[in-house]
């Protein structure tokens, strides 16, 4: 126990006293996320044609370790196709209570249709509200179900609680504010 060591300790704490706190005041300030964060899924579209990338192959459902994904394919109408292939996903549902956000669905997808996004504020009240359907997952939708509900009630735009240095290219077409 030397006096020098004690003085050094005082110096270190004083330096910290005048540094910026590491605390993120979360609901007031956004959480900085890494670009590869595994958040709520996004079903992407081909940016040029606007057609869905998903071809309804169910490989994501097969890869899913938590059995959270349900896909029901249907034949595309050749005149007015939904996706580029022969088939498309008529029903595409992810149960967010079952999902473990491992990203295996994204790994398995042959067309890069299902991609992990950044949204993480998924807490809700009813079981049924955790089942995200196609309209909740497609790129045009911003915000989780409770977030969009709250925004609708308050008549304000959806407030996302995160920020990323850049949106990774797999999430093409997603518009995070």
């Amino acid at each position, binding site marked *: 126990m030397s006096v020098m060591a*004690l003085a050094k300790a005082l110096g270190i704490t004083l330096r*910290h006293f005048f540094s910026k*706190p*590491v605390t993120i005041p979360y609901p007031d300030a956004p959480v900085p996320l890494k670009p590869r964060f595994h958040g709520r899924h996004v079903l992407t579209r081909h940016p040029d044609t606007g057609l869905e990338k998903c071809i309804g192959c169910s490989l994501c459902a097969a890869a899913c370790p938590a059995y959270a994904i349900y896909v029901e394919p249907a034949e595309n109408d050749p005149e007015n196709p939904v996706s580029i292939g022969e088939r498309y996903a008529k029903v595409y549902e992810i149960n967010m209570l079952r999902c473990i956000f491992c990203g295996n669905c994204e790994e398995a997808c042959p067309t890069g249709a299902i991609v992990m996004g950044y949204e993480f504020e998924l807490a809700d009240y009813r079981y049924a509200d955790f089942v995200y359907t196609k309209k909740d997952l497609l790129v045009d939708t911003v915000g989780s179900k409770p977030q969009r509900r709250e925004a609708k009630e308050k008549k304000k735009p959806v407030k996302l609680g995160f920020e990323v240095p850049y949106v990774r290219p797999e999430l093409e077409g997603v518009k995070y504010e």
Partner: protein
Amino acid sequence: MIGALFVTAVKALVLILALLFAFAYITWIMRRGLARFQVRLGPNRVGPFGLLQPIADAVKAIFKEDITVAQADRLLYWLAPLLAFTFALAAFAVIPVGPDGWVVANLDMGVLYVFAASELAIYGVFLAGWASGSKYPLMGGLRSIAALVGYELALGMAILPVVLMAGTLNLQEIVEWQKQHGYFIVYQLPAFLIYFIASLAEMSRTPFDFAEAEQELVAGFHTEYSSTKFVAFYIAELLHWIVGSALIATLFLGGWDAPFGLPEIPVLWLFVKWALFIFLVLWIWASWFRTRYDQMIRFAWGVLLPAATVWFLITAYYVVKGGMA
């Protein structure tokens, strides 16, 4: 006579209110300050900058269930927090905050009074430890008493050179002396250091915060106290910090005297010096470890007390040989 009594009563009331207000906000300063030392934000949700946090804490503490241990000695169990609280408050009465009338009691034996009050506050700790009827408070109380008594000796010994040089026990006159001759921190640096270290134990702050070595003793002597009785102990503990800091500022840093020839404003300069020590204690709290109990006792009896005695003899020799005159 009646008029003088009334004036004193009003002064005392103002002082008590000021001290309780200081206590409420010292909890805020403590939590925010420690948080900043640990690179956190601290409580900031209640009111702007968390300034209403003390009120929220008070409401919460009052509405807690008041539990008494079945084996507790009821009377002493009640008396202990009352004693601790009262004597912690009483100690400030003789500390002058400004020239002449700016003190509640201008006692000729002011230094002795402060010591008497802080010694009596130890009874609160002792009785709480004894009356709780539980083993952790008993051990915590024993430790606290041993530590407080040990450090009280060094504290008293470190104050004697100051009293010798000033030639008075009156705190107001000690301040006047410093106003004329310069602050005691210059003449009595060793005494100041000993006094400050012993004060840390007296305030039960790091590195001598044994009363609440929570890893070993849960919460020390007030383990079995809850609700308002716990608050009384908490207030007493922080008041020791407040009063102790004010006392160091008065004894060694010239009290209410304006430094560097600045304009003299009552309260303000004592407040500035007091705030300095409050911060210093907080800083040490955030930086250092807690010493082991036996190390602490050995340090008190083996280092501080002899050092204080030697310095006292040196000062006594100097004063006898002619001193400042």
